[in-house]
């Protein structure tokens, strides 16, 4: 096993891919900012469309924040593997001695760092603008944490399946939105429950469980899908 030392370890491979992705995003801030701006825009559109009475806003805010977060995440998922596919990095990832599911996980984690995390950081602002009680913000951030993480993992499967296709954009939404619906249902309802002052443990636990399930299974599906798409 003389050559074994030349291969970087599992953690090294994982962390260097995450670092590369975050660095790439840093160099192209538009890719990170666009979904965020989209999130803020959608959240602005709703009061204009629905009406500005305080009661109405408070009532619809949890769902609204969640729909906006879901759409913003989908928007950024589209390009998850596209540039890698076009410049050949994807071939290198598949050929590399690192296990592909681990690299798929790294892609998802990096995607969450540059798209999910900023969403969570912006969400309190939106909650305040909708006059939601401040007690809700913690629960909302927590549900968004598990929810966006699950979305990054789940969405990576869809992005991997549609990577080489010309009509990938609309297709990705069609594939991922139905699968993401449990996240949306539980996320939005849990925030509503929190706004009404009810207990929220069940919803938060559900989202956490869903996230763990996605964390364990999704990278394998993503890896399989990447192999198929890159044949």
């Amino acid at each position: 096993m003389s050559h074994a030392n030349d291969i970087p370890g599992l953690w090294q491979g994982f962390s260097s891919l995450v670092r590369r992705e975050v660095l790439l995003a840093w160099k192209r801030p538009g890719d990170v900012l666009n979904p965020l701006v989209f999130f803020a825009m959608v959240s602005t559109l709703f009061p204009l469309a629905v009406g500005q009475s305080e009661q109405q806003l408070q009532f619809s805010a949890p769902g609204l924040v969640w729909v906006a977060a879901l759409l913003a995440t989908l928007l950024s998922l589209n390009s998850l593997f596209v540039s890698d596919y076009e410049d050949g990095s994807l071939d290198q990832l598949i050929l590399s001695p690192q296990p592909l599911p681990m690299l798929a996980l790294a892609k998802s984690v990096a995607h969450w760092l540059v798209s999910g995390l900023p969403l969570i950081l912006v969400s309190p602002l939106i909650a305040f603008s909708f006059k939601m009680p401040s007690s809700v913000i913690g629960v909302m951030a927590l549900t968004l944490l598990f929810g966006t993480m699950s979305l990054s993992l789940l969405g990576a499967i869809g992005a991997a399946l549609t990577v080489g296709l010309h009509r990938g954009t609309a297709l990705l939404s069609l594939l991922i939105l139905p699968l993401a619906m449990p996240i949306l249902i539980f996320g939005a309802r849990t925030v509503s429950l929190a706004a009404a002052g009810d207990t929220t443990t069940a919803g938060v636990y559900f989202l956490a469980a869903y996230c763990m399930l996605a964390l364990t299974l999704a990278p394998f599906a993503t890896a399989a899908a990447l192999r198929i798409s890159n044949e």
Partner: protein
Amino acid sequence: MWKFLHKLASPPYFYDLSASMIPWFAVPGVLLIAYGTYAGLFLAPPDYQQGDAFRIIYVHVPAAYLSMMAYMVMAVAAGIGLIWRIKLAHAVSAAAAPIGAWFTFLALITGSIWGKPMWGTWWEWGDPRLTSQLIMLFIYFGYMALRAAIDDPGKADKASAVLAMVGAVNIPIIHFSVEWWSSLHQGATIVREGGPAMPPEMLYPLLANILGFTLIFGALLLGRVRSEVLFRERRSRWVRKLLLAEQGKE
């Protein structure tokens, strides 16, 4: 057993065998549905709360059950095709999707027709089972759209197989959503402790219809797989032989 399975996976053998199997599914299926529908509509007593409106369950329950059954068939076949690289299994998966989508649609439509007199509304978002059936329909659409979007058939098979297996994770969530969120929907009445909460005159037609629908699903599936196999193998020698033999008969 293994030998039989290996033989079954060969398209020409399957094509021959399935031709003789379809009547075994279709005939009892039609008879059971005829009995179940007649008995359900005319012999079963009206429900003490719902009156005659409950009779839609004789279509609704089998359709809802088959919408999930078809998905299971699709996902399991997709898994078999992906793991053991059996092309016939992919054909089964491709054939099951449209049938499953139709049963899902039927379950949604009958559910909403039943909902109008019972809940006073065609559609009730508060009911998770209705919503999850709708999600189910979208998953079927996504599966078929992905298949249609990929030009290379081998790649389409494998990619959609991954999607089918990922979607299968949703089925338990659909099933248990009834218990997770308080809902308007009827709880399970057939499978529960202490026996079914339904008099036998009501239950037997329902069971007959469930079985009948399942058999008809089997017949439809076999028929669709046959045409799928013919299409996929259209350039092979045995299909050409078959066609020549057909032409010879005329």
